[in-house]
């Protein structure tokens, strides 16, 4: 349980970091919070010759909230984002999901960007990037680019980031006013990777459902957003049968069995959680309109 030898680089700037990455190429790995990478190294499941430790890099630790987005720098720890009140007000979904990411001690170290770069289908935050139709900002020694979520995740633990690239931030897009969100998951133990998790965003307009979307944790290879608006559009949130999306959910997921849960069980969970999260998101949407009416201010 000790890693193989590696060279430790501790750049102070993004420019230095990507310069090292350009030099070491496939032999290098970015080290952020280390909550996924260090166990992999210790078990010698990977033995990169170079670690580019970005923990000293300046300018990556900020959460910035704009009218349209929440931008999260590469050194923002899960806990920092979880407790960021402005981010919560702008996009409650983030906190709703983050409290399910492992345990507080792990959230104190692990980064949200690292979690997305790691692209574990069982991670919560990749699914949040999908549901918010977010963007990854990547920088290399030669170029900078923005990668839309649809182009980012390529498979389990696979992304379109090249070995020379550093993800410097991700941007979660805010939902339209009056959208309610919900996240629920079922894990064997509190804080474990989920057997299945579902995020829902529902927007009501004039008391009727206008938009409904889902994304999934642990039951798809690649996090994607599933639009289920067609099933519910125009219905009243109080009387709608939220299990009506079951067929769409079944078609969208590809759960695999493991020692903790069979594929069938995970599928059942995904369907059940879709029902529960859609209902809760809709209730929150209705409540958001209520608050907006009461205060005549903008809805969350």
């Amino acid at each position: 349980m000790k890693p193989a030898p590696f060279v430790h680089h501790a750049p102070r700037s993004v420019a230095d970091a990507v310069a090292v990455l350009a030099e070491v190429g496939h032999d290098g790995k970015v080290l952020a919070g280390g909550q996924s990478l260090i166990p992999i190294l210790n078990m010698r499941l990977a033995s990169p010759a170079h670690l580019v430790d970005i923990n000293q890099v300046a300018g990556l630790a900020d959460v910035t909230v704009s009218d349209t987005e929440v931008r999260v720098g590469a050194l923002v720890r899960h806990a920092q984002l979880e407790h960021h009140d402005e981010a919560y007000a702008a996009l409650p979904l983030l906190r709703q999901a983050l409290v399910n990411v492992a345990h507080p001690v792990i959230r104190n170290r692990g980064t949200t960007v690292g979690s997305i770069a790691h692209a574990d289908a069982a991670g919560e935050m990749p699914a949040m990037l999908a549901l918010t139709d977010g963007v990854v900002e990547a920088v290399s020694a030669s170029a900078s680019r923005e990668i839309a979520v649809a182009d980012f995740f390529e498979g389990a633990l696979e992304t379109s980031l090249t070995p020379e690239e550093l993800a410097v931030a991700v941007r979660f897009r805010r939902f339209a006013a009056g959208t309610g969100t919900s996240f629920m998951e079922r894990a064997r133990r509190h804080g474990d990777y989920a057997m299945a998790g579902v995020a829902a965003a529902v927007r009501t307009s004039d008391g009727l459902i206008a938009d409904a979307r889902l994304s999934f944790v642990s039951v798809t290879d690649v996090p994607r957003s599933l639009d289920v608006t067609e099933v519910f559009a125009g219905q009243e949130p109080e009387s709608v049968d939220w299990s009506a999306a079951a067929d769409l959910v079944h078609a969208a997921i590809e759960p695999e069995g493991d020692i903790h849960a069979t594929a069938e069980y995970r599928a059942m969970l995904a369907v059940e959680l879709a029902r529960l999260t859609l209902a809760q998101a809709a209730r929150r949407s209705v409540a958001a309109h209520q608050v907006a009416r009461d205060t005549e201010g903008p809805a969350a």
Partner: protein
Amino acid sequence: MTTSMFGAPIQRKEDPRLVTGGGRYLDDMGHRALAAAFVRSPHAHARIVDIDVTDAFEVDGLVGIWTHEDLPGKVGEPLPLLIPHPTLTHGRTQFALARDEVNYVGEAIVMVVARDRYIAEDVCQRIRVDYELLTPVVGIANARDGSALVHEDVPGNVACRMLQEVGDVDAAIAAAPHTLELELDIERSACMPMEGKGVLARWDTDKGELRIFSSTQTSTGVRAAVAAKLDLPLAKVECIAPDVGGGFGVKINHPWPEEVLIPWAARLLEQEVKWTEDRREHFISSAHERGQLQEIKVGFDEQGRILALDVKFWHDNGAYTPYGIIVPIITSTQLLGPYKPGAYRCEFWSLYTNTVLVTPYRGAGRPQGCFAMERTMDAIAEYLGIDRTEVRSRNFILPEEMPYDHGLLFQDGRPLKYDSGDFPASMAKLKALVGWDDFAAYREQAEAEGRRVGLGIGCYVEGTGVGPYEGGHIQIETSGRVNVSTGLTSQGQGHETSFAQIVAQELGVPIGDVFVTTGDTRRMPYAVGTFASRAAVMSGNAIALAARNVRAKALRIAADALEVSAEDLEIVDGIVQVKGAPGTRMSLGTVSVMSNPLRYAFDDAAKAATQFAGSNDPNKPPVADDDEPGLEGKDFYSPTQATFANGMHAAIVETDPVTAEIRVLRYCVIHDCGNMINPMIVEGQVHGGVAQGVGGALYERMVYDESGQLLNASFMDFLMPYASEVPHIETDHLETPSPLNPLGIKGAGEAGCIPVTAVIASAISDAEGFAITSMPISPVELWELRQRHARGEIPSLARPRHTSTSPGSAPVPPVQEAR
């Protein structure tokens, strides 16, 4: 005596040190030591064809590589079989390094010693072992089938077949008005102490002396075993257990391969060598427990009284049997719990499989036995339509029947004879605590809300404090400091506190003056070890006896000095004084000064003991012929048999109607371990035990695939319950003293975990309306059982489920925070 220390719920003396980083565990020592790492078998069953180390030699920092070939003399012989038994006809133990065959994934093949552990692991990675694969035997069913063999020379994979019978079971079954048959299955789990094993050895070349530090539950055992292996005089070997971060049984087995190899390497290299087990090694090369298949036939009358109980079980002992067949023997005897079946027969087969070996884990065979008995009790209740507590009560051994001899031999080779216990009283307390009689109303209310709840129960008796003996040594310094030593070891049980309480009580000294040392062969070379809930009973009583000796000596010396009779003296707060006239007094420290005639005064107090200080009688030697210098005493406690503690648990569970998730809403414990030295420590032991029990019931299992790979050898996938999974535990105690020992105490260490699996199975069965026969159980498994039940493959419980006896008085259990 001002305050009574015995029985006081005082906080643990060791905790401030342990919880503020002051503990000194094995890996906190030996920072300059060379480090060992092992190449372990990736195959469950294979012949070793070739070991190629050529690539490994170039690694900078490598010190040495050894395979079985290199091990001289006894070091290269199989490890000892610690507990032989006449029925263990095919006992097998492993070599410290595998010779030509490996029998489980994780068996050590090559030892590497290097400058540090990183380098040692680099070297391991470069060593290539060629194997010829053999058919692996995984799972009890395959082992029992016997078509493939773990050990070529062990037919049918049977290490041992044992049969004990009291009465004529066949005749009693034939005559019984009713019979039932059950088939049960219980899975493997493991101790999983927070600290794994570890060994540090120092060889003193000049003196030819070996000092071993081991994270062990028996330092005297390791010392004797290593001395024998290395052909060293016992006098030249010391073994010390430093702070040990949990044991739960796995560290009582010894010597582990590493406990032989590390000292051997230290002597060979004349350098300090250390090995610290990592978690993966702990999973695949320490020990597991629990796995059994059981078949039960029971005959009973209209009242539910058991006339005959016929039990067969198959026990998975893994690849080797270094600890003998203690676990299945305990299952077969402790299965009886608080009950007295008319006739009883138990036959078991202990079987080899190509998996990690099986040695005792907290509970040590009892959870399996309790599961068998308690599932049977529920089945009888169900069949006759009688309340589950009623059926149990009708089978209880009554207080007036104590001592009760079952006519069987227990794990210590002595009669299974209960010394005391009041089972009806325990049951009454449990029913009151959980609100047994009001549950039907509570269930009705819950079901009206669309919730599914169930109530479960389980009773057990636990033989604790087995011999052969332990010792206690007490010495009072001239400062009044009381040094206490006992040879068994501590893994977090609070011995520094509970043993100190006994001494404070017996001697009449402040507890702050008492300092306890355990597990150091330099301080107490005669000892057995910490296991079988025996520390308090064995060392506690030995220490009490030693304290009584010291007290008698102190009173004799003080009586002489104060010119009074010893009977007129008492000791209060470390001061010996005349009863009723406390002005006439001297401190125990002063008594200590006087107990040791001195030539040299090393400080002011010591002057009083020098040759020109007092009125010496020139006709007597300074130390009398029948006396010894020093205020010091030693004694041993060796009982004729174990003392039997007992307990009863009940739980209310809720199962999710859709997802089949299982939540324990309430967990209630009645516990009787005789007189309690420290109720707070007892409570802590019970809590910890229940937590491990919940793990065994709902979360933990060792998932082997058919090739013998352990698929969940990490804390990511082996699901120990977190604090968030352990229910709030409600406890109440009964104190039925043991008549067998001076302090009237019984063991408490294992108690909490014993009935949990049975209790949870009982509660889930009650919630679901069909019997749970296989544990542990996960949501997925319950979900699948529901589907089978719906298809008619699993019968519904016969008793109508929704009967309400006392409507209107539904107690609402304190539901835990939903997550």
